[in-house]
């Protein structure tokens, strides 16, 4: 059962990757990105990183809101090209064939577990690999977090400085 589910997630990941890569209108492209993010996080959950997947989903949802706003505000087409229109569908078929050729080239019969998060992935274990990593980060990585917070503060200043003053900032 788990194999079928993870096969579905991996296949959906690749298909939605193709949906982004075949160059539709920005709106549909960002929809494809949402699908990529969802399937990717599902793959991460399937291989044991529940907490990591949760964090990723939250960050992706926030970023996707911004991307949707951007593509709605800046790149709204009158006649948007979805995946059905000629060039996009052609590229999609091309990428699909490329994926098939590549997977046929790298196909191996023996199949092993590619990844796991923190070694032991037991069901319902209180100490998972990713949560352990978070606790390590907060206990030992204090200076690192200070530098990260400093970099984020710097980013805030940079954004303020670039967009400052409506009549002469970068957004006019």
């Amino acid at each position, binding site marked *: 059962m788990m194999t079928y589910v993870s096969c579905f997630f991996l296949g959906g990941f690749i298909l939605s990757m193709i949906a982004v890569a075949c160059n539709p209108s920005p709106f549909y492209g960002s929809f494809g990105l949402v699908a990529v993010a969802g399937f990717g996080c599902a793959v991460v959950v399937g291989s044991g990183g529940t907490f990591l997947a949760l964090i990723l989903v939250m960050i992706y949802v926030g970023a996707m809101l911004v991307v949707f706003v951007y593509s709605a505000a800046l790149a709204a087409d009158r006649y948007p090209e979805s995946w059905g229109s000629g060039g996009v569908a052609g590229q999609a078929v091309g990428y699909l064939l490329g994926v098939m050729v590549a997977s046929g080239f790298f196909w191996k019969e023996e199949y092993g577990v590619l990844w796991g998060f923190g070694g032991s992935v037991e069901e319902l274990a209180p100490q998972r690999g990713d949560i352990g990593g978070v606790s390590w980060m907060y206990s030992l990585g204090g200076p690192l977090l200070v530098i990260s917070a400093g*970099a984020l503060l710097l980013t805030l200043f940079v954004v303020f400085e670039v967009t400052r003053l409506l009549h002469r900032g970068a957004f006019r």
Partner: protein
Amino acid sequence: MNPYVLATLLFSLGLGTTLTFASSHWLLAWMGLEINTLAIIPLMAQHNHPRAIEATTKYFLTQATAAAMLLFASLTNAWLTGQWDIQLMSHPLPTTLASLALALKIGLAPLHTWLPEVLQGLDLPTGLILSTWQKLAPLTLLLQLQPMNSSLLIILGLTSTLIGGWGGLNQTQLRKILAYSSTAHLGWMVLVLQFAPSLTFLTLIIYLTMTFSTFLTFNLNNSTTINTLATSWAKAPVISSLAPLMLLSLGGLPPLTGFMPKWLILQELTKQDLAPAATLAALSALLSLYFYLRLSYAMALTMAPNNLTGTLPWRLLPSQHSLPLAISMTASLSLLPLTPALTALFTL
């Protein structure tokens, strides 16, 4: 720009590079590079000209791509080998990926296309920061990598010297010429990187000196095209008589400082039994020499016709400080006799 903001940005610019210098951990090194990139962005966009904003956007996109690639490489390295140390990269895949990401960051040849476009959109002092200080952190990381694939760095170096020479040939814009010259010099540095890292370091220092004096000279003349260089003799006669020597030093002619790194690198390549690569690099230096010669021809070997009042600006006191230019110009013209001392000084 508000002086407090400017101070914060300059401090962060220094902090990012220092953080990358001081770190042996990939995550911290990546963080330093990101701080560096972020801190220079408002400085690049400070004049709010559309061209400057465009250059800033291009710079941000390239550097963000390179930083993401570097982070991916270091994560892959941590996943495959279980450690984050910069000097202990032992798997070829992340090492190659990190080398390519750093090549994109400093503008080496197949990945150099952003550099002329970005530099052309900036004013000369910001361009000076971009082509000197911003190269330091990625190059130190590149110096610390243990190269797995020896042909990768040679290919990067040779294409950089060739394209750096070729691209500058038909340019009339000084900043684009300087960008291509930067690509060519970085190509020389990368070419010798795996054989003698101390030579890379020496070449970097000498390139920084020479390009510092070039940018300051052009800034003193307030010129961004070859045409405006032609009236330089009326503005600053001494500088315009020294500038051809400086440009030829950048091109690498013998009695000047710029000959030293090329000489030592060619010797090292010959010692490593790489005579074809050495020949190709030496020939591509001729391409660069052509456009340096064209610059010096326009600047000092011709006297552009001018009216009487146009010949007088040398009487006015210059508004810029010329001491840094004097020091770097002296260093970039006459350090060749100190070659043994310098090679001993910059031994890594």
